[in-house]
């Protein structure tokens, strides 16, 4: 294991971190406003990836064109789940919502499996030649993932700071009661938050599928590191999710230098537990 190997792992870590960041921003936004951890988030990722895959495989469209389709699918399914189920449970304890989202995760996963089958799929046929930078290797897909994430994160930032709806989301997340007495239509903001969270999850799913493969379990397997990233960033703080995502991504990949790769999720989890014990409000977390 020399420096080059470690740098190579760090690059993989940043790529994984990008994917986790997109997922964690959505989880964090939803948590900030609805105060519950959405366990269906990983499976929305899966669904978005498969929706994009359907576009790629039937229309032979390029992945970057299929990405928005996947994101729209993720947004629509999230909003539908909210309107059909979560909306009616919001008056109860957040934990009931959590159980419900756990069930929703299984519903979405089964639907994906029923439509597309249990076998692995791939966006890319054959193997694209990786590009060499000195001794380091980067595949074109990984550059796409990195670039796509940067574009999406900037777009989310602009949305949250420049638009009326984006600011209303931040206001709801800051102080729900005050937002209501200020005249913000909470229901409308919640629906838009689901749409945004679902779209981001779907983008994360497409990128994850580009980096690896499509399987019905792919999103669920990514859920734990995503929660870890969101918690690390201070749950409910979308900007913290970026930092959290990168740390978890890099830590997971770097851990393969000393541990079997199978333990990557365990590394994410260990980082999260240490964080919870040492600084329960997250890295950027000041007490509200």
């Amino acid at each position, binding site marked *: 294991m020399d420096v080059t190997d470690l740098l190579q792992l760090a690059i993989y870590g940043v790529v994984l971190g990008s994917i986790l960041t997109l997922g964690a921003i959505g989880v964090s936004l939803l*948590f900030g406003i609805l105060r*519950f*951890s959405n*366990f269906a988030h990983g499976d929305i990722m899966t669904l978005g990836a498969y929706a994009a895959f359907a576009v790629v495989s039937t229309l032979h469209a390029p992945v970057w064109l299929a990405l928005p389709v996947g994101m729209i699918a993720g947004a629509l399914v999230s909003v539908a789940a909210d309107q*059909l*189920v979560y909306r*009616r*449970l919001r*008056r*109860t*304890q*957040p*934990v*009931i919502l*959590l*159980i*419900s989202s*756990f*069930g*929703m995760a*299984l*519903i979405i*996963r*089964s*639907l994906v*499996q*029923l439509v597309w*089958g*249990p076998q692995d799929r791939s966006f890319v046929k054959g193997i694209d030649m990786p590009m060499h930078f000195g001794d380091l290797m980067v595949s074109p897909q990984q550059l796409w993932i990195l670039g796509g994430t940067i574009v999406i994160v900037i777009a989310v930032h602009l949305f949250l700071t420049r638009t009326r709806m984006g600011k209303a989301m931040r206001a709801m997340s800051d102080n729900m009661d005050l937002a209501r007495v200020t005249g913000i239509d909470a229901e409308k903001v919640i629906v838009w938050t689901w749409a945004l969270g679902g779209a981001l999850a779907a983008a994360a799913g497409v990128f994850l599928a580009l980096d690896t493969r499509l399987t*019905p379990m792919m999103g*669920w397997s990514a859920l*734990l590191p995503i*929660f*870890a990233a969101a*918690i690390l960033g201070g*749950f409910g703080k979308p900007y913290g999710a970026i930092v959290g995502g990168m740390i978890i991504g890099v830590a997971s990949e770097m851990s393969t230098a000393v541990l*079997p790769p*199978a*333990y990557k*999720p*365990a590394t994410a*989890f260990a980082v*999260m*537990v240490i964080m*919870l*014990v040492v600084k*329960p409000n997250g890295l950027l977390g000041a007490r509200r």
Partner: protein
Amino acid sequence: MSIDLSGLASYGVFLLTLAAIYGVVSLALNVQWGMTGLFNIGIAGFYAIGAYCAAIVTTPPSPSHLGGLGLPFGAGLMVAMAVSGLVAFFVGLLTLKLREDYLAIATIGISEIIRLVLKNEDWIGNGVRGIAGIARPLSANPLVYLAVVLLVLAATYFAVERARKSPWGRVLRALRENELGAQAAGKNIYRFRMEAFVLGSMIMGLGGALYAHFIGFVSPEAFEPVFATFLVWVMLIAGGSGNNKGAVLGAFVIWVVWSGTELLTNQLPADYVTQGSALRVLLIGVLLQVILLRRPEGLLPEERPHVGASPASSAEAEDEA
């Protein structure tokens, strides 16, 4: 005809045994969630610990995995409970002071790690190949084992029911419904939550051990871990969380429904048979949503003392304050 009948009878014994095992686990979850409000979605982890402990303690010595201590059935159950309880203690130490979401995420994380370790560390349980040859106690006759399981279920039910009615159980309920009030009354919340979490996890380990002896084989993928957890949650919520009779009833009803969906998916054309399990999971997922929306209190709602506000109305008051 008589062959059919005996086939039906043995299927019935199989069904009942598994339902009773799930009944034990459902009671365990009721201690944690129904009585105390602890959100554990790592049930499968404790279940797996119990199953592996039973396997390691009771099978004859073997070079392919840890132990093979060749001890009797009862010893396996004891060790299964002890180890599950110990793991729960450490998980609790880290997470019980945190918010409930964090406990949920932590428990699912632990159960994933347990699965990863069992899969990758061959020396513990022979890796993905698992441990076979776990014998049933007394006799290989499934009827005898059904009796044993029912006996354990009954004992668990009476123990848990007694705990629920005891002063200890009343404190748990007070903690769940109005944490600040109970704290003001001088109760150490953390200690009570820890006790409930450890007790519940020990019973989950017990359920896992019963399962191992019934099937005779354990492996990391022997049962879908996430799904096992989910099914138990559906059972408890359908039966009536907080009510021990409900927990057991829910286990039997949902297990019959779950097994029934198998009969349904078996009718599918051959091309779709591989998709059968996805369809079944889909149906159960939808069933859970329907229960949460239509009858969140379950078949047998919790018997509440008449003093004090219900959690729903106090939550409303909070919202409006």
